[in-house]
């Protein structure tokens, strides 16, 4: 057999948030090298948090990501409030969870309809999909709007909301606003269930792989707080994170890589459903049973169904919170203390960990942030090695590129958090 050496350079990973590229080297039909590159230029948030007053942190960290600003705000206030031992009331805790429900709905619906689904209908974009499946897209936009409205309810706008502060919220919305929102959400729940049923019927690649799932866990389905667990039995608190998780840099990426006790791991919707399946409300267990419940699953393509199920989880929860909503004192009093604070939460894409060091005046002296995409980066490479080999390395470059994109999109990488389009280079 003669060796083929082909080099192509195609602007490629569309429909992800940020800029990335994939380099493949195939020699004699075998995979010689594979690099998932993130080259979104760094924005240095950890540096310019230094010297800022703690009250400015929620507005600053929101700007790391326009798609999941609430996740950044909540992980940050969790870290600072645990340091200051702020006595959060049940109302404040519940409203944090409600705000976060809005971000999961918005981000997951955007990912399913605008980013992931076009792949399964051989379409470039949601606009093409809308011509083939107009009702599906219309329903998707309505569900996404439910998420946006929830965030606006507590935050004024859905991108970089302004309602949250260290110690609680700036304002408690009125009962009338809650009632209006509740009606809109109630209309969306049957649509979300129909979405999950419809997604379960899409034919997916069968691609079982071994990996370790990592997610927060609580009695309820963990979102804004919890203990960290993995599928190997690890159970830790926020302050123990750095003893198990380490970050390193690779030449081909502006995102730092994260490993757990030396190994790659998965965070995000599939990892959460794998670990927290038992916490699902009864109606969703019944629904999943009827759909031939695949969770826990080792097929990363099940992450789209995991997102649809999570939309149902949080929509259902938001409705029950809003049904008994009454305004209350929006924030708690506390005193500033010097020291280190640790905080985390489940961003739509997975675990988001923050650490801040603060002085007596409440000034940030050091900050460290580990976003979900850098945690999934090692797993994405490992997955691509396996899934491209299974797909067939002898396939045409264009087919390899499309399949790679489909695999990468399962992780919903937010490369702005860690970048915008993928260039695929293959050397054969």
């Amino acid at each position, binding site marked *: 057999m003669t060796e083929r050496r082909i080099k192509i350079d195609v602007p490629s990973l*569309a429909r992800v948030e940020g800029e990335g590229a994939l380099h493949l080297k195939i020699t004699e039909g075998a995979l010689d090298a594979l690099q998932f590159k993130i080259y979104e230029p760094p*924005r240095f948030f950890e540096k310019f948090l230094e010297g800022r007053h703690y009250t400015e942190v929620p507005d600053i960290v929101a700007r790391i990501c*326009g798609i999941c600003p609430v996740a950044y705000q909540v992980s940050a206030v969790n870290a600072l409030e645990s340091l200051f031992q702020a006595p959060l009331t049940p109302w404040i805790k519940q409203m944090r969870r409600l705000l976060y429900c809005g971000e999961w709905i918005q981000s997951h619906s955007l990912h399913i309809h605008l980013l992931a689904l076009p792949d399964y209908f051989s379409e*470039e*974009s949601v606009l093409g999909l809308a011509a083939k499946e107009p009702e599906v897209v219309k329903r998707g936009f309505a569900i996404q709007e439910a998420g946006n409205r929830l965030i606006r309810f507590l935050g004024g706008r859905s*991108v970089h909301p302004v*309602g949250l502060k260290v110690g609680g919220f700036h304002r408690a919305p009125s009962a009338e606003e809650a009632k209006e929102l509740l009606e809109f959400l109630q209309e969306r729940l049957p649509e979300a269930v129909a979405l999950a049923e419809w997604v379960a019927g899409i034919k997916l690649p069968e691609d079982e792989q071994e990996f370790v799932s990592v997610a927060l866990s609580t009695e309820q389905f963990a979102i804004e707080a919890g203990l960290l667990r993995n599928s190997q039995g690890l159970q830790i608190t926020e302050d123990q994170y750095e003893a198990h998780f380490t970050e390193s840099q690779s*030449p081909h990426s502006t995102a730092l890589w994260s490993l757990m006790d030396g190994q790659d791991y998965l965070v995000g919707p599939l990892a959460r459903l794998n670990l927290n399946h038992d916490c699902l409300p009864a109606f969703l267990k019944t629904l999943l049973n009827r759909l031939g419940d695949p969770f826990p699953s080792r097929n990363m393509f099940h992450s789209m169904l995991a997102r649809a199920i999570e939309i149902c989880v949080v929509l259902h929860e938001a409705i029950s919170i809003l049904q008994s909503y009454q305004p209350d004192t929006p924030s708690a009093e506390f005193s500033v203390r010097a020291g280190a604070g640790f905080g985390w939460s489940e961003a739509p894409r997975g675990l988001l960990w923050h650490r801040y060091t603060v002085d007596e005046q409440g000034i940030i002296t050091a900050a460290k942030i580990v976003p979900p995409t850098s945690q999934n980066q090692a797993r994405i490479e490992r997955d691509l090695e396996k899934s491209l080999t299974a797909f067939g390395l002898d396939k045409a470059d264009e087919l390899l590129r499309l399949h790679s994109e489909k695999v990468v999109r399962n992780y919903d990488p937010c490369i702005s958090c860690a970048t915008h389009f993928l260039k695929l280079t293959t050397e054969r």
Partner: protein
Amino acid sequence: MSKPTLAVHKFSSCDGCQLALLNMGEALADLAQHVEIKHFVEAGLVNEDAKVDIALVEGSVVTAKDQQRIRRVRSNSRYLISMGACATSGGIQALKNLADNPADWIGQIYPQPEFIDSLDRSSAIKQYVEVDFELWGCPVSSLQVSEAVATLLNGAEPLDNQEKLCIECKRAGKICTLVTGGEPCLGPVTRAGCGALCPAFGRACYGCYGGAELSNQSGLRKRLEGLGLPPESIQKRMHLIHPDPQQQNER
């Protein structure tokens, strides 16, 4: 007659201003009836070098590659709109422009700084190419984007709203956070456009829509000093989302 064409280009940013389009819902499909969207990577449409009638540019210029790319975008576009804080003023990442040794920052975050392509400054789009219209805000709203595009499609120039947030807030009948609340509100020196969200939430404006033209900055500084804020805190507060005053110059 063929439809007018549109491209959305991203530079260094959080992607939040593109959400003004992606969160529009069915209005996005309506927009696609009126314009042909040639390039919008996050939505899956990739044709970076397409010639278009309208280019929406998000993000600031922070790498040597970006410096070249923005010139290509300009030469391929009839009407270029920069949208959002990053594109109009360098954005929050322009905080590094104010640092004494920004080049050192890479070394403090990355163990191997030689792998990172990053200029010392984060620059607004107008620092490199001529910009036809600016949409201010962090983030811009769906209304701002659709108004600007719809006006252009109807053959008119979009109108630059130079009103100050303070006036928008008064008109909305909000209780004044500065005078009544004693909070360090930046409303008197900030561009209108957000709908006075922060005062509606009982908190002081932090200036995310950028500095208004012909505003009385020194008067507000004195007022904030009167509230007991030290000058360095006032300086920091006025330079958070749009930190680099040199980037905000007239087009």
